């Protein structure tokens, strides 16, 4: 195990160091101390590292992550794991808004609550939230899965494309063109896989599925008068 301290090397020092490691490095396990809510900690990682961040982080932590497995032992600020490509980002506390925004792949787990706009414009990332999500979550979600073990705020899945949404609790309201959909066997097995990966105890049968009615993202000649 190797240690890096934000207080001594700063955010830039952390990122330069982790990104400077060769892809096949033997120094795989890193612990980051004193994050002090600073922004952009451990962004752009592209080696299969295991990174533990001991404390609360600011904005964009784990952004653009590929291959690395990050664990944030605390609260995560705005835009955690934004545009993640692969790997894992695991938040042990709550997260602020826009977690997993535009994520292309990988797994983001938030043990606590996520705030508004969780998974906004998601493009293939899998997100599992142990608690609630705020309003406008999965807005314009294109691909990937958002699993919500608690409740969802207003306008869930507004203008959604093909992302899959699974909610165990209540949904305050669905956004434009987002509807409840039938839970078929492939969805049960998909959800089972995601819950297991996020070490959740919920059962797939307790969830409802939501997705696109597909009425909004293609031009409909019936709406020609509206333009």
């Amino acid at each position, binding site marked *: 195990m190797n240690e890096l301290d934000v207080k001594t090397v700063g955010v830039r020092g952390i990122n330069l160091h982790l990104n400077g490691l060769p892809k096949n490095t033997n120094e795989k396990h890193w612990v980051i101390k004193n994050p002090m809510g600073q*922004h952009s900690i451990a962004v752009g990682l592209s080696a299969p590292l295991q990174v533990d961040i001991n404390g609360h982080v600011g904005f964009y932590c784990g952004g653009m992550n590929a291959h690395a497995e990050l664990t944030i032992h605390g609260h995560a600020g705005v835009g955690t794991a934004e545009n993640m490509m692969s790997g894992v980002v695991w938040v042990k*506390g709550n997260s*602020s808004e826009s977690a997993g925004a535009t994520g292309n792949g990988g797994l983001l787990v938030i043990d606590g*609550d996520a705030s*508004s706009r969780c998974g906004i414009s998601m493009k293939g990332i899998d997100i599992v939230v142990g608690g609630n999500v705020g309003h406008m979550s999965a807005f314009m979600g294109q691909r990937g899965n958002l699993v919500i073990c608690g409740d969802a705020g207003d306008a869930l899945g507004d203008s959604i494309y093909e992302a899959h949404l699974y909610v165990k609790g209540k949904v305050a309201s669905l956004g434009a063109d987002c509807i409840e959909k039938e839970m078929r066997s492939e969805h049960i097995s998909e959800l089972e896989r995601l819950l297991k990966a996020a070490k959740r105890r919920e059962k797939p049968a307790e969830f409802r599925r939501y997705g696109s009615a597909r009425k909004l993202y293609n031009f409909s000649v019936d709406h020609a008068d509206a333009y």
Partner: protein
Amino acid sequence: MCGIVGLYLKNPKLKPKLGKMFKPMIIEMTNRGPDSAGVAIYRNPVKKAETKFSLAHNDGSYDWKKIDVGLEKALRCDCRIKKIGNHCILVTNAKEPAVVAWLKQHHPEVRVVGSGHTIEIFKETGLPANVYDKFNLDEASGTHMIGHTRMATESAVTTAGSHPFATGADLCLVHNGSLSNHNRLRENLRREGIDFQTENDTEVAAAYMTWKLRSGATLKQALEDGLRDLDGFYTFLVGTADGFAVVRDPIACKHAVMAETDDWVAMATEYRAIAHLPGADDAKIWEPEPSMIYTWGGHA
């Protein structure tokens, strides 16, 4: 941009350390607002029959003695003054409206930045660290404090345009965001007899609150009505005599985070401002929900 911070001490033993605990919070928000900074501190309550005014003048060498003497003579009251930077804390047993009217008539260059029993407001252009030092806040003792670092978008960088803005006795407001209907609202409020010192949008929000509270609304009602009448992006932090309140607009894209321990409650635009507080590592941390009014210390 702009940064807002608030600290409310649950543990009275920490009171002597309020200024020291608050300093790194507001300084951490410097790069969100390097234009101006301001704080409201709640300390040294005056007697029931007295009112404490925070007054400001552009000239740091202004002779406050003439205000003291002039007021005592004109209103047959007792006054005591304490000069702090280019501000002055004036305590008097005269009635609040009479003092405001006298100042307006005889010394229009003196600005009343706050009044009440415990509140003191200090604000000035410049870096937060300089402002903090100028008003000797490091050693300040008190129950709670709110602060603002400003990056001006809606109006000029002036001391008068800095936050906090007073909204009534012991009440003040700091704001991160911008209001889009402040011109129309300002005109409406002028017709209700409310004076304005600047073209600033936050002053309009503060005046709106003042008007609502004057009309008999509770703080909570005033904030709820504000959600309907104030159009724009905002996170508001409102300082009250015994605590503070937080409210965000329904879209809630202006950042806000809150943290609580057994010893304190803190609110900030970004968590890094809170990270310096003792015990922050183990605090309960969450993002306040939109259109939800959070209060500490009662009074709402």
